[in-house]
C-alpha cells in the first residue's frame, strides 16, 4: 500500500501549488513540494526493504483498470522489481535533494511555486514511467517527462532563446517518441498485449533470435530511447536545454528524463536480446555519442554546456553497456552518474549564483580561493566523473569497460572507443577545473559566498554518495540479477551466448590508467589555464576562436547540418505550400466576400437624392414588370 501512494504525493503537491500559486509563501511552497518528494523517497526506501523479503522479488499493485483493448486490459498497475527499485530510489532520492536545493536556488524568483509545481510533476511522470507495468502507462510517464522538460527548460520564457530551447527539446524528443509509439502499435498488433512481463514472455515464445519483427520493434524502441536520452542522431536538444534554471538541468540530467531511454532499453531487454543486430546498434550509438560528446565538451565555454556534453557522453556509456548485454552495469552507471552529475550541476549552480549568473568559463578562474567548499565539492564530482579508483564512477564505469571486449555485440573496437572516451572525460574535466577554479580571477563582479544551509547540505549528501556510491554495487547487483537472470538463461538456451572470447589481462590496467594519463596530459596541455597570470605578464586566458574549435563548440556541426538538411527544406516546402489549392479555395471565399463588400460600400453613397432616384426607378421598373 505504500507503493500505491508513492507516485502520488508529488502529484497532490503539484495540484496544491498550481491551485494556490502565488498565495503560498516561500516557506509553505517549499514544505509542500520538498515534503512530498521526500515522502516519496522515504516510501521508496521502505518498499525496497519489503521487496528484498519477497520470494519472487516483484511487487505489483493494481490501482484501477484504465481501459481495455479487445481482450487485452490496460491497467493502472504499479510494478516494482529490482530494476524499477533502483530507478525509484534514484528518482526520488536524488530528486528530493535537488528539490531541496532548488528551493534555495529559486527563492528570489517570483514564480517560485510554479517552478516547484513543475518539478513535482516531473517526478510524478518519471515515477509513472519506471513503475508502469504496461507500455501504455510507461508511455504516459514518457510523454509527461517530455512535457515537464518543455515547461522547465522554458521556465524563463520571457527570453525568446529559452523558449526556442524548450521547443527544440520538445520537438526533437518528439521524433523519438513517434518511433516509440509505432513500436507500441507493432507490439500490440503482433503480440496482442502491452503488459511488459507478458510481452517479454510472448516474444521469447513466438520469435526466434533474429526475427524480423523483433528487429523492427527493437529498432523503433531504440529510436524512442535515442530521442529521450539524447544519443547520436537526436542529441542536439540536450546542450540547448541548459537554458533552464540550473536545478532543472540537474533534474533532467541526473534523476529523470535522459535516463528514461536507458531504462526503456533495460526494461525491454527481452525484445533486444532477440535481435543482436539492434543490440550492436545500441552499442555503436553509445560509443559514437560518447566520443562526439567528449570532443564537443573540450571546446565549450559555458560551464553548464560542458556538463551537458559530459552527461551525453556518460549516457553513451550506459547505452554501450546495454548494447553489450551488460544490463546491470549500465543501470548501475545510471545510478552513480545520477549521484555525481547532480552534485556537479548543483555545485555549478552555486558557482553561477556566486558569480551573478556568469556561466562563461573564461570569465571565472581562481575560484578555489574564494569558494573553497564549492571547489572541493565540484572536485569530488569531477573525480567521480573521471572514475578515479575508489569513487562511485570507478565501480560502474570500469564494470562497463570490462564487459565490452568479450561481448559479441560490442567487441574490441567499442572497447577502444570507451577508453578514448574515458581519456576525453578526464581531459575536459581537467580543463573545466583549471579554467574555473585555478589561475587568476577573471570575474568582473565581486564573488558572493553567502549560501544558505538549504543550498549546502544537499551538496554534502550528494558528495558523500558520489564518493561512496560504489558501496551500493552489491545491493544493486542483487536487485538487478533477479530482473535480468531469466533473459540470460534464455539467451544461452537459444545457443546465442553473449560471451564469445575471454578478454586479455592488460585491458583492466589500461582502463584504470587512462584517466590518470588524461589528467597528466591536461596538466601540461592546459598549463596556461591553471597558472596565475603574474608568471606571464599581460597574459590573458581567452577563448581562441578558430574553425576547428568552433566546430567542436557547436557540437560537431550537427545543428547546422540539421538546419540545412531538415529545417530549411521543411521551411521551404511549407513556404511553397502556403499557396496550395485548398488554400486557394478558402481564399476565394474571402475574395467573394470582399467583392460583395466593395459593391455594397459603393452603393452606400450617403447621398439622399441618389437613394430617392434609385427607389423611384426601382418602383417604376417593378410596376412595369407587374403590369406588363
Amino acid at each position, binding site marked *: 500500500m505504500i507503493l500505491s501512494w508513492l507516485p502520488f504525493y508529488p502529484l497532490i503537491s503539484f495540484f496544491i501549488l498550481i491551485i494556490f500559486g502565488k498565495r503560498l509563501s516561500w516557506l509553505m511552497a517549499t514544505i509542500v513540494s520538498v515534503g512530498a518528494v521526500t515522502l516519496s523517497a522515504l516510501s521508496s526506501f521502505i518498499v525496497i526493504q519489503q521487496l528484498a523479503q519477497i520470494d519472487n522479488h516483484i511487487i505489483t499493485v493494481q490501482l484501477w483498470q484504465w481501459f481495455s483493448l479487445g481482450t487485452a486490459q490496460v491497467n493502472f498497475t504499479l510494478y516494482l522489481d529490482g530494476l524499477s527499485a533502483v530507478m525509484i530510489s534514484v528518482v526520488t532520492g536524488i530528486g528530493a535533494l535537488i528539490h531541496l536545493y532548488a528551493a534555495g536556488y529559486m527563492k528570489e524568483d517570483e514564480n517560485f511555486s510554479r517552478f516547484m509545481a513543475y518539478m513535482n510533476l516531473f517526478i510524478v511522470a518519471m515515477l509513472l514511467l519506471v513503475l508502469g507495468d504496461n507500455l501504455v502507462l510507461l508511455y504516459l510517464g514518457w510523454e509527461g517527462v517530455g512535457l515537464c522538460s518543455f515547461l522547465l527548460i522554458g521556465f524563463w520564457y520571457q527570453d525568446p532563446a529559452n523558449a526556442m530551447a524548450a521547443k527544440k527539446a520538445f520537438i526533437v524528443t518528439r521524433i523519438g517518441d513517434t518511433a516509440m509509439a509505432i513500436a507500441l502499435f507493432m507490439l500490440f498488433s503482433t503480440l496482442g498485449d502491452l503488459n511488459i512481463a507478458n510481452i517479454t514472455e510472448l516474444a521469447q515464445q513466438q520469435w526466434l533470435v533474429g526475427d524480423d519483427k523483433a528487429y523492427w520493434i527493437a529498432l523503433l524502441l531504440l529510436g524512442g530511447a535515442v530521442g529521450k536520452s539524447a544519443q547520436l542522431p537526436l542529441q542536439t536538444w540536450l546542450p540547448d536545454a541548459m537554458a533552464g534554471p540550473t536545478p532543472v538541468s540537474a533534474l533532467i540530467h541526473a534523476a529523470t528524463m535522459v535516463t528514461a531511454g536507458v531504462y526503456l532499453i533495460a526494461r525491454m531487454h527481452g525484445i533486444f536480446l532477440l535481435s543482436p543486430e539492434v543490440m550492436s546498434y545500441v552499442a555503436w550509438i553509445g560509443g559514437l555519442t560518447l566520443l562526439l560528446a567528449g570532443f564537443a565538451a573540450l571546446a565549450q565555454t559555458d560551464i553548464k554546456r560542458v556538463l551537458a556534453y559530459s552527461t551525453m557522453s556518460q549516457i553513451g556509456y550506459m547505452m554501450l553497456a546495454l548494447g553489450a548485454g551488460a544490463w546491470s552495469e549500465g543501470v548501475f552507471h545510471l545510478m552513480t552518474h545520477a549521484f555525481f552529475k547532480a552534485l556537479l550541476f548543483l555545485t555549478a549552480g552555486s558557482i553561477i549564483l556566486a558569480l551573478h549568473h556568469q556561466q562563461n568559463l573564461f570569465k571565472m578562474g581562481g575560484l578555489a580561493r574564494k569558494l573553497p567548499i564549492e571547489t572541493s565539492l565540484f572536485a569530488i564530482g569531477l573525480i567521480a566523473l573521471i572514475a578515479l579508483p575508489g569513487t562511485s564512477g570507478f565501480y560502474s564505469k570500469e564494470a562497463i569497460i570490462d564487459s565490452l571486449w568479450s561481448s559479441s555485440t560490442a567487441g574490441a573496437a567499442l572497447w577502444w572507443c570507451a577508453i578514448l572516451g574515458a581519456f576525453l572525460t578526464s581531459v575536459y574535466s581537467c580543463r573545466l577545473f583549471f579554467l574555473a577554479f585555478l589561475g587568476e580571477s577573471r570575474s568582473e563582479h565581486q564573488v558572493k559566498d553567502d549560501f544558505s544551509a538549504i543550498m549546502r547540505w544537499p551538496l554534502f549528501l550528494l558528495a558523500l554518495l558520489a564518493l561512496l556510491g560504489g558501496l551500493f554495487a552489491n545491493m544493486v547487483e542483487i536487485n538487478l540479477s533477479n530482473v535480468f537472470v531469466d533473459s540470460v538463461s534464455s539467451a544461452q538456451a537459444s545457443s546465442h551466448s553473449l560471451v564469445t572470447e575471454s578478454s586479455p589481462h592488460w585491458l583492466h590496467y589500461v582502463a584504470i590508467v587512462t584517466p590518470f594519463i588524461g589528467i597528466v596530459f591536461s596538466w601540461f596541455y592546459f598549463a596556461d589555464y591553471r597558472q596565475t597570470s603574474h608568471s606571464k605578464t599581460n597574459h590573458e586566458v581567452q577563448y581562441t576562436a578558430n574553425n576547428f574549435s568552433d566546430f567542436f563548440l557547436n557540437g560537431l556541426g550537427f545543428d547546422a547540418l540539421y538546419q540545412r538538411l531538415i529545417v530549411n527544406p521543411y521551411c521551404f516546402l511549407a513556404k511553397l505550400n502556403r499557396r496550395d489549392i485548398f488554400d486557394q479555395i478558402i481564399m476565394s471565399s474571402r475574395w467573394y466576400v470582399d467583392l460583395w463588400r466593395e459593391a455594397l460600400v*459603393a*452603393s*452606400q453613397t*450617403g*447621398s439622399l*437624392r*441618389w437613394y430617392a*432616384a434609385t427607389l*423611384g426607378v426601382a418602383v417604376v421598373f417593378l410596376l412595369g414588370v407587374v403590369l406588363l
Partner: protein
Amino acid sequence: MIALPFEHILILATTLFLIGFVGVISRKNTLFILMSLEVMLNAVGIAFIGAGSVWQQADGQVMFILILTLAAAEVALGLALLIRLQRKFQSLDIDILNKLRG
C-alpha cells in the same frame, strides 16, 4: 356639379407626384426636398380623394385625413431636424450631409 373623369384626376395626381419626385432628386437644399415631399404626399392625397368619389366610399377621405396628419407630423419633425442640421453643419446642402456614406 359635373363629375370630373377619374382619368383627369389620376393625370393630375401623377403629374404632381412626378413634379415632387423630380424636386426630391434634383434639389440640393434639404428644405426644398422636404417641400417636394409634401407635394408628393398631396399628389397621393388627390388620388385617394378621386378614387373615393368614383367608388362613392368614405375610405378615400379617411386616407387623406391620415396623410394630412402624417404630413403635418413629418413637417414638424423635419423642420426641427433641419434647424439642428443648419446649426451643426452651417449648411443644408444634402450632398454635404452624406455622413452615412459606406
